[in-house]
């Protein structure tokens, strides 16, 4: 077979079957994929730990399970290991009625246990490696500036590119694993200096610190898959990256990636490449988008409400993407305080906070008393994927409230600002 891409002798040998038919197909997939985007070569993956988007053993994906069996049969695995998106089920902390359980366990995620065994065989880092926020310090899968990755999961890719300065394209499930197995990815798009140039200048001129999830949504819907350079956020975030800013940018980025298809953004004076190169990152013909209070409110009010008319919230999900340690602590404090302020002992609406297993462990270890107070309100902490939970068609009958713009986009959940969510779960408003 002829390839346009410049390949090394070793890569050509693999394609010709020197390391087996299955590895040849794995590499052929990456080469063909890269050629569609004009990639002229493959480059080494320098941050070896991968991240996979497909964490769920959904019965529908039969070819996924068959392909995994082929990889396992050929003895192939990701030598650097990988983390993976959150599990779809947590009956202990996200309780389900018998009908939901039947649909989740017997129909939708009937292959979950089998699939997790397959993941282990091809390189899953450990049993707690399930989170969309693999890059948080507690999870430890944190690349450095300039590292080349083979990751999927749009919110993780945009964080790694923008906040950490790593280099990764928006990959599909399966190709994320293939790149980790062969140790190469095609060189195009966000891996190149040219592909990382901003084609939009975004000016944030708001009178208060904008809600990260709405700002990200507005920018995502405007620029779609292009790269924005954002001015004005340093007024609210300062000019040094810290845990608080990273959490803000995590939520902002997830919204840009799900409401649009953003894989990289630059924040003036804050993110690594903007600090290093500044406006040299912007193309001469960049378009302009100005965001003020009115524009944010317009975007917020444009979200369709998928609930039945007159419905009231039955379930609140906070943490998509998964919460950082500081976010989890702050939400726990705020919930305990807000519920008490209303003269209540329990939350008015069933509430689930989601965070990675490593963050939950740290919270339990360092905040045992706060966790006990939180649990007395009836709120729960889980490492589930809220998106996978809402994938169940029955959840469309539930009125789910969330502060996640990603969850709103992919489900019938209704988006509320953080302050509104607190009022709903504490019973201050319905």
């Amino acid at each position, binding site marked *: 077979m002829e390839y346009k891409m410049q390949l090394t002798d070793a890569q050509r040998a693999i394609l010709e079957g020197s390391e087996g038919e299955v590895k040849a*197909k794995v590499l*052929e*997939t990456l080469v*063909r*994929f890269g050629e*569609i*985007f004009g990639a002229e070569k493959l480059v080494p993956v320098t941050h070896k730990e991968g991240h996979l*988007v*497909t964490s769920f053993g*959904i*019965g*529908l*994906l*039969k*070819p*996924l399970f068959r*392909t995994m069996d082929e990889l396992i049969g050929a003895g192939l695995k990701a030598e650097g290991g990988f983390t993976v998106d959150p599990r779809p089920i947590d009956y202990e902390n996200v309780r389900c009625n018998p009908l939901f359980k039947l649909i989740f366990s017997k*129909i*939708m995620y009937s292959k979950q246990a089998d699939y997790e065994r397959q993941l282990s065989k091809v390189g899953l880092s450990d049993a707690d490696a399930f989170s969309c926020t693999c890059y948080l310090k507690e999870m430890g899968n944190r690349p450095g500036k300039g590292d080349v990755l083979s990751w*999927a*999961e*749009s919110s993780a890719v945009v964080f790694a590119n923008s906040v950490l300065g790593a280099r990764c*394209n*928006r*990959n*599909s*499930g*399966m*190709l994320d694993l293939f790149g980790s197995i062969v140790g190469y990815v095609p060189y195009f*798009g966000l891996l190149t200096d040219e592909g990382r140039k901003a084609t939009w200048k975004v000016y944030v001129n708001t009178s208060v610190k904008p809600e990260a999830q709405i700002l990200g949504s507005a920018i995502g819907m405007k620029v779609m*898959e292009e790269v924005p350079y954002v001015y004005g956020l340093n007024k609210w975030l300062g000019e040094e990256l810290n845990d608080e800013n990273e959490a803000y940018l995590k939520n902002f980025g997830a919204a840009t990636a799900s409401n649009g*298809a953003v894989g990289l953004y630059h924040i003036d004076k804050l993110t690594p490449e903007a600090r290093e190169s500044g406006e040299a990152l912007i193309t001469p013909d960049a378009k302009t988008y100005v965001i003020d209070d009115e524009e944010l409110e317009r975007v917020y009010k444009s979200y369709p409400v998928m609930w039945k008319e007159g419905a009231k919230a039955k379930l609140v999900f906070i943490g998509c993407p998964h919460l950082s340690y500081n976010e989890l602590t702050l939400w726990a404090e705020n919930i305990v305080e807000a519920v008490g302020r209303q003269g209540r002992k329990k939350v008015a609406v069933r509430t689930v906070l989601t965070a990675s297993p490593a963050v939950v462990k740290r919270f339990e270890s360092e905040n045992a008393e706060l966790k006990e107070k939180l649990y007395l309100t009836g709120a729960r902490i889980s490492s589930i994927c809220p998106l996978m939970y809402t994938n169940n*068609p029955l959840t469309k009958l539930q009125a789910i409230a969330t502060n996640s713009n990603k969850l709103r986009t*992919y489900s019938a959940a209704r988006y509320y600002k953080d302050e509104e969510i607190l009022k709903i779960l504490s019973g201050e408003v319905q």
Partner: protein
Amino acid sequence: MKTFKGRVIAGGNWEGEAVVSHGGFNTLATFQKSAMANKKEVIAADQNNKDIFGLNITGKALCLPITIGSTTGGLVIQTVSSMGINPKCFLFSEHIDSLAASGIVLARVWENSDVIAVDMLGEEFLNTVRTGDIVKVEEDGTVTIL
């Protein structure tokens, strides 16, 4: 009769009926319901896509700008191709997106699928073709609305 020339992603000769999505095509939302139920045909289930919601898209020429939605999109295209319930052709007006490209490559390499894909057919193509039109697709990326 009007002819357009695009870039071949996965070539083939074919003639058949078009279904047209003017907005981004949400792969998971469209295919999930039929594939989960092991149906022999896909009835498009994305309620946000009024152009194709409720239409049978199996064996048709799906005309679209790009795909959108979950990064499982590539796997879903591979899945429906393995089940033989995929659209026969994907005809993109824009440059194919990375998720659809993954799906087409996975279907070809891992499922020996004969799915056809042509991209960069241009905005005028999508403005011209209508659901129900008969289109002819040629090996070199020529698409003719008959």
